[in-house]
């Protein structure tokens, strides 16, 4: 049932109980030290008084009596002080969220939700890598296409060149020209036959 006051420790840098303990020990030490001084001062004064019938042990007993009395009251009063300080001064009310923890209310992510988010991120990274590789593949194909197109256009140009040569030499239509030549050579052959027959 002891409240460790960890949230307060997060804010202050120390637990309130540690602080109160420090104060308690320091106050108690001062009380004892001061009483010790009182005791030694009285004993010194006694030494200076001639024929003094008061013994040092008597003084010691008186000091102890007074110290005991003071300690009792000290404990009671300190207890009350501690209670007030722990409840009202060195505490963070339940409804208060420290500024550094605002993110906990803005992003209340459970472990599972966070895992899902991390998995989603991993997936996106994989997708991006795949798209990047796909982009490279597409660009590589574009380069390949340039080379292939260049070759095909060269062949087409060659065909156009053939057509130009034919045109330059007056052959607009090879088929027709060959048909014409074949016909003519057939005619020539027939003429030759005719001439041979007539000369015989």
């Amino acid at each position, binding site marked *: 049932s002891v409240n460790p006051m960890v949230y307060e420790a997060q804010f202050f840098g120390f637990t309130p109980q540690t602080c109160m303990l420090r104060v308690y020990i320091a106050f108690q030490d001062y009380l004892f030290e001061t009483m010790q001084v009182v005791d030694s001062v009285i004993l010194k004064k006694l030494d200076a008084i001639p024929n003094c019938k008061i013994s040092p042990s008597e003084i010691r007993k008186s000091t102890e009596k007074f110290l005991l009395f003071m300690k009792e009251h000290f404990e009671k009063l300190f207890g009350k002080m501690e209670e007030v300080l722990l409840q009202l001064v060195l505490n963070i009310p339940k409804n208060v969220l420290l500024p550094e923890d605002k993110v906990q209310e803005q992003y209340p992510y459970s472990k599972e939700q966070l895992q899902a988010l991390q998995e989603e991120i991993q997936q996106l990274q994989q*997708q991006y890598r*795949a*798209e990047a*590789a*796909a982009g490279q*593949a*597409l660009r590589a*194909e574009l380069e*390949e*296409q340039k*080379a*292939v197109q260049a*070759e*095909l256009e060269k*062949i087409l140009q060659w065909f156009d060149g053939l057509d130009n040569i034919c045109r330059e030499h007056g052959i607009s239509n*090879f088929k027709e020209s*060959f048909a014409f*030549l*074949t016909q003519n*050579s057939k005619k020539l052959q027939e003429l030759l036959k005719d001439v041979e027959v007539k000369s015989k």
Partner: protein
Amino acid sequence: GDYLQTSQGQIISSKPNYQQILEQQGEVLSCMELVFNELQQTVKLLQ
């Protein structure tokens, strides 16, 4: 195989064989060589 999962996966997977295309043009040129040989012979014959 990984490309199929990408946005343009189908296009990448259907890449034609450009090497084959160029090799086919080689065949075209061989064919043309034959055609011209024939033409040459025919012209010689006609001459």
